[in-house]
């Protein structure tokens, strides 16, 4: 009894904290903000986009503007959209006047993508895609192009620079049994990791370069890197020149004698991207899709974190409101008042000024807290 009275007297001397459950965080000292970049490898084998699912993972639309590719038959709830394919032809293209199928759609697609990705010149006119990105210097333009628009699910915040690879089968024969892949070229953003361009309204982009990746004879017209497209890292769009399927005689990059222009459509006499003149977007997307051997890149997620330093002093949080903490009203972990109080931390709650619980964190195992220990628990909240 006297023990209890003495406790009371002690309480009169030692004021109990007004809010003894919650400890305020000093924003200046106890909160830190960090930024972390995370990368994931995204490999897409060609069999997924042509063959594995008998094209049940390919979605075409009545409007005929583009084709969507999924990683599983798209009627399934498990399917994820991975990219879209379409084709664009500039009004300045030599092929444009010959286009007879979906001419306006191909022009509209080109202009739409160009105005978003390449922007406008000082007169307000839409700029065409520049082959090397050096717009002021003029130079070759990409007027007949394929667009691969990757899903946000794959690219997350952006494609990691210097990691993009697209391998295309360029054998001239059209064949669904693998013959198209007996000669291959690989498109990479070769300079992406140490050099990229920033004169686009949608962020950074790099030039895609083509090299021979497979084939017993020379596949390319010359043993060199050919600039054949642009890769917009944040937008997640690859712009691929039609020249990748043309031989040198037709203004492309392929070897004239050993490769010839790639026949994209078996039922047509067209060679290379000449297919754009008489085929629909859907047919052209099918043709390109069947030439994709492999696509891979790393994506980037920008993780912004707040780290809260929860500092627990030796004289804090040594008691519990756990219903099992008391037997009657007596503290179970003490046999006499002079024993040190003990509690066990399993959770940390983060609150606002109204004491509303906004976030929780858990320890992997109970952490013993007594008046002879102090801790700083770092709680990280990612956004």
């Amino acid at each position: 009894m006297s023990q209890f009275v003495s406790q009371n007297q002690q309480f009169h001397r030692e004021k109990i904290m007004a809010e003894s459950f919650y400890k305020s965080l000093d924003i200046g000292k106890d909160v830190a903000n960090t930024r972390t970049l995370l990368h994931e490898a995204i490999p897409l084998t060609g069999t997924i986009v042509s063959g594995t699912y008998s094209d049940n993972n390919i979605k075409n639309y009545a409007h005929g503007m583009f084709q969507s590719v999924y990683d599983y038959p798209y009627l399934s709830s498990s399917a994820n959209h991975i990219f879209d394919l379409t084709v664009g032809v500039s009004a300045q293209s030599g092929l444009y006047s010959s286009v007879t199928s979906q001419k306006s759609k191909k022009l509209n697609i080109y202009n739409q993508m160009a105005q978003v990705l390449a922007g406008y010149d000082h007169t307000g006119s839409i700029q065409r895609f520049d082959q090397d990105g050096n717009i002021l210097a003029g130079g070759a333009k990409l007027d007949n192009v394929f667009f691969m628009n990757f899903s946000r699910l794959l690219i997350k915040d952006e494609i990691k620079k210097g990691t993009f690879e697209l391998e295309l089968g360029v054998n001239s024969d059209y064949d669904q049994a693998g013959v198209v892949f007996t000669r291959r070229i690989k498109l990479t953003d070769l300079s992406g990791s140490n050099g990229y361009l920033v004169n686009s309204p949608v962020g950074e982009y790099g030039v895609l370069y083509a090299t021979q990746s497979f084939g017993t004879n020379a596949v390319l017209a010359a043993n060199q890197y050919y600039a054949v497209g642009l890769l917009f890292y944040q937008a997640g769009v690859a712009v691929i020149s039609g020249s990748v399927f043309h031989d040198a005689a037709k203004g492309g990059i392929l070897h004239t004698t050993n490769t010839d222009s790639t026949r994209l459509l078996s039922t047509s006499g067209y060679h290379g991207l000449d297919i754009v003149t008489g085929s629909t977007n859907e047919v052209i997307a099918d043709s390109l899709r069947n030439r994709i051997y492999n696509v891979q890149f790393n994506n980037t997620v920008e993780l912004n974190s707040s780290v809260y330093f929860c500092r627990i002093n030796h004289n804090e949080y040594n008691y519990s409101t756990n219903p099992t903490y008391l037997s009657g009203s007596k503290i179970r972990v003490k046999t006499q008042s002079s024993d040190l109080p003990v509690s066990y931390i399993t959770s940390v709650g983060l609150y606002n000024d109204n004491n509303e619980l906004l976030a929780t964190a858990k320890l992997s195992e109970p952490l013993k807290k007594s008046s002879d220990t102090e801790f700083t628990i770092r709680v990280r909240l990612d956004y």
Partner: protein
Amino acid sequence: MGFLDNSGDIILDAVLTDHGRKLLAKGDGSFQISKFALADDEINYTLYNATHASGSAYYDVEILQTPVLEAFTDNAGSVKSKLISYGSMNLLYLPVVKINQLNSSTKMHTSGAFIVAVDAETEGTADNVTTYSVGYNAGQPVPGVIFGSSLAGDNRIRLDQGVDSSEISPKERLDPDLIEDSYIIQIDNRLGKIATINGDMVPEDYIDDDNIAYYTVDVGLVSQITDESAGLSEAIAGPRGTRLEFKIAASIDLNTSTFLFSQLGGTSTLEGKAVKHIDSIVRVTGMKTGYSVDVPVRFAKSTIS
């Protein structure tokens, strides 16, 4: 020569609660983390063995082996039993909150919960006990049945606070800093609301995303226990603090519809009458000590409607 342990601070990944996500989405600045609290929800202190044969290092060996669950995103189900700081390290007794059932008007129903009769038919009247009413028996109010529609009668819920130990005389004064002068009451807002014993409605502080209403109550519902005797009407054996008394008003939904009874409840027999019912709990937490009690409540509606 071994390396020193450089693991340093403990690093935890936090998850937003559903309420946190809601406030973040509102974008009005209410998502502003400014304080923290610690909890020990998984810990069972009865495993603390102060007589372990191997010595004090083994007293808590079973507690330390307790597996910890992943974080819940339900704000109402997380960080429930908080750790608390007291200035003194010499406390041996702490106050508790207990349901006082020692008076006929504060008794729980014999079914093991407080019954809230949600409409007039279920309440009945003293002079007209119908086939459906459960509130009266032989003209007398049935103990443990709260009239949730009219808020009439004396039946109510009473909780007493203090040190519940016969080792200490109730004549001892509880330290003012351990006396609760306000409580938080949590109740499912779809089912009921908190009212004073006079039948006046109490405004809630806020209702969270899980429809749990939070009430902070003090004057009007909380009063000092002045009885220092070891009388039979006191639930607290030792020094006493305050008592909390309140009634529960049925929600409009329960009063006028059986939808929630069909969705959340069942049917049973109460006082010999067939009723639809929903079982719930009302949580009462002391603002100072954090001690909480779950009060079992059954909302009942006669099958007349």
